[in-house]
């Protein structure tokens, strides 16, 4: 009877969402979040404070509104699962594919704002990064505090694993702890100078391949922070989140740098995205503020590593000479192609790989 009363137009819009069983509210919340970031990131004043506010809102949305898994592993697994449903269960397929597709689309159109402004794992690491920046540091090496901290954390983590494992509380589906152990190991090796920061970031491909493998072989590995999205009891996910927080106090945004599989996807897509941060070499006074302001060390002496940039705009906001700016690369390229090449056009400085 209710359906009969509904107008045809309402039916057209309503019916596809009926089987989503109220989850369209979540979808709308996320879309609103992205829209908010796109609008707000254009603000030039107090942008970093606004970013913190958006991160806070995204926390609330993720932890209290969102029902589907938005962890960095879950979004890959769910996306693949959604692909398998295409052709058989369209509404459900749409549900699982929607979020990864929105992130990919927004990354292509507006840069990797998900990493810098929305991702809850990234936001958590910003908290530990804030602590890190207030810890005493010794230039050129590890301070005693850092050394004691990382040794103590690693030891505590190993002891906890052995204890939980011996009590048969951990099984193969708790393998998100493997990522936690790897993160601690990488932080130790980087701080000890055994491995270097930049080349080790290619491990994100390894991490992505591992998640892909577990997804296609139907092995359950839950994301860090996943425990908070649903009402599942997931001690492995909670412990991994704790390790990520801890590792962030040793190496800023270490999870994003070395192991985030979704970060690799977004970084790859950023090479083709419409908006990008570019340096006007003519305005740069080589002060190095941009290097220190970037939490993921995506900029070094004015050279931006596009695949690591998280579009937080920190470098843009800290640059006193306004040498860094967000540029519409698509428009710039279209303009360049439509005009005859000038004899000596100023080229923005960028890494060769970008």
């Amino acid at each position, binding site marked *: 009877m209710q*359906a009969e009363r509904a107008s045809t137009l309402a039916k057209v819009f309503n019916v596809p969402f*009926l*089987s*989503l*069983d*109220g*989850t369209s509210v979540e979808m709308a919340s996320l879309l609103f979040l992205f829209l908010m970031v796109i609008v707000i990131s254009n603000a030039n004043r107090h942008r970093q404070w606004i970013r913190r506010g958006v991160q806070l809102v995204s926390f609330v949305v993720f932890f209290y509104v969102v*029902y589907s898994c938005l962890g960095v592993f879950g979004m890959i697994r769910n996306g693949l699962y959604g692909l398998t449903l295409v052709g058989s*269960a369209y509404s*459900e397929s749409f549900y699982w594919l929607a979020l990864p597709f929105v992130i990919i689309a927004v990354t292509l159109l507006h840069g990797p704002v998900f990493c810098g402004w929305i991702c809850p794992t990234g936001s958590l690491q910003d908290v530990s990064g804030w602590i890190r920046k207030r810890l005493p540091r010794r230039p050129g090496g590890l301070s005693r505090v850092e050394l004691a901290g990382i040794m103590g954390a690693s030891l505590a983590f190993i002891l906890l694993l052995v204890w939980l*494992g011996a009590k*048969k509380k*951990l*099984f*193969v*589906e*708790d*393998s998100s702890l*493997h990522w936690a*152990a*790897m993160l601690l*190991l*990488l932080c130790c*090796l980087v701080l000890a100078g*055994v*491995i*270097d920061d*930049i*080349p*080790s970031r*290619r*491990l994100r491909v*390894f991490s992505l391949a*591992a998640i892909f493998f577990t997804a296609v*072989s*139907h*092995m*359950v590995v839950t994301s860090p922070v996943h425990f908070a999205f*649903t*009402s*599942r*009891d997931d001690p492995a996910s909670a412990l991994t989140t704790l390790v990520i927080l801890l590792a962030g106090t040793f190496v800023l945004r270490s999870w994003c740098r070395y192991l985030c599989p979704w970060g690799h996807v977004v970084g790859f897509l950023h090479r083709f995205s419409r908006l990008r941060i570019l340096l006007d070499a003519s305005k740069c006074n080589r002060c190095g503020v941009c290097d220190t302001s970037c939490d993921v060390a995506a900029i070094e002496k004015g050279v931006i590593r596009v695949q690591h940039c998280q579009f937080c705009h920190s470098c843009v906001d800290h640059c006193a000479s306004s040498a860094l700016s967000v540029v519409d690369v698509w428009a710039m390229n279209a303009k360049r192609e439509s005009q005859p090449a000038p004899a000596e056009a100023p080229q923005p400085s960028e890494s060769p790989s970008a």
Partner: protein
Amino acid sequence: MKLSGALAVVALLLPWRAAATECEIWSQSRCDAQNQAAIELRAGQATLPRAWSFDGSGRVWGYEPGLTVWSSPALGVAGDRPLVVAGNYDHTLYCLDAATGEPLWRFTTGGPIYAAPVFFHDGARAMLFAASNDRIVYAIDPASGRQIWVHAVEDYRPTLGGARLASPCVGGAGDKDDAIFVPYWVWDRSLANSTQSSGVMALSIADGRPLWRKALGDGELTAAIFVRLQGRGVLFLGSSSGNLMALAAGNGDVLWQRAELDCVRNPPAFLPDAAGGLLVTGSKFGTVRGLEAKSGVERWQFRTGDRVTGSPALLDGKTPKVLVGSYDRKLHALSAADGSPLWQDTTRGGVYSSPALIASGSEPMVLFAAWDHMLHATDLARGQPIFSAYTGAPLWNVAGMDDSNWASPAAGRIRGRWMAFVGSYDGTLRALPLEADERSAPELRSNLWFWLSFPMFLLPAAGLALLLTHRERRRRAAAASTPAR
């Protein structure tokens, strides 16, 4: 006048009273419309029950969505022996002595049997009905395993791509149980006619003659539950396309239909009450709904943390309860009145099965199976865990198989002792004693793979990081040593 009025009220309430009694014959997929899946097996020749297991894995077939090794079991009595009957993916229906596990007979069909069989007994004769994915409904003598009659719900044609038959249920249009109702789904893969179609077929119990057939779209259907509402037979069932339906058992007419539910994977449960009965269903998006059985109007809803694939089970009493498992790793006990949570029991794996309720006896409990490969028993009143028993890992190295309706446990009391029967995805049909003095120590699951996979993950990753650093340092050294032009 007053007396006649009281008698009229009693007469009106009789159907509810009748439905509220304990399950006596396993005539529906989960024994009765409340999905309690627990029954007293009164058999003169029953020996004292003991733990047993029966391996039915045979040749391990490749996994495909929908596949299960065992169907949920059905329990009954024939030839004065307690029986457990379950279908298997090797196309065979197995019947074993429920007390000893002794195989009594087997019946081979033309397709895998994923649907729980049901029993029928009218005093004069006993029958067993099994629906196989070869599109055929079999009526079998449960004492001997001999075929009584068969009926194909869809005629063979070379373009048929597959079929899935849900558990039959016994009922009738009037007061007499004279029909079985079989939900079906068939796929015609011919190029000209690539269609999926589903519906419900009613067959005469006596000879398998079709009584009526109702087409219900293209979504795969759950088993139906049969209820008599004010003397009128009604079927309730769900579908994978998100519909929940009430059909008239007399002619298959759709009494009401709700279209806004998500994929419903298992039959709803019915609890009689003064307001016309409560129907409870769970959906794949994790919502448990309580509906008016007469109209389908929603009374309440409760959102679990993840998908619900099993059926809810309902328990009448002072505080009527809804028990439902969810992939959020919890068994939820809700108030049937308003859906408010009463208690939860948390496990280490998503709960995929429908629960079995043992409401009588010294230790009322609820049995359920979860993805931690355990059968759990929980105190029915407070949700305190009683015991867990390891029932084996899947035959396939895949763990997220929520596309299949894996077998749910059933409970039977033989000579005063409760036993749990569960067909596990490791291929074994098990019987486990539930009495406190007979429970064996739970077998612990190995976590060897957790430890082994640590070096398998860490060593290549650390080696790769070292290799990448080494290469980068060499490249930089080479660049530094090259004289600038």
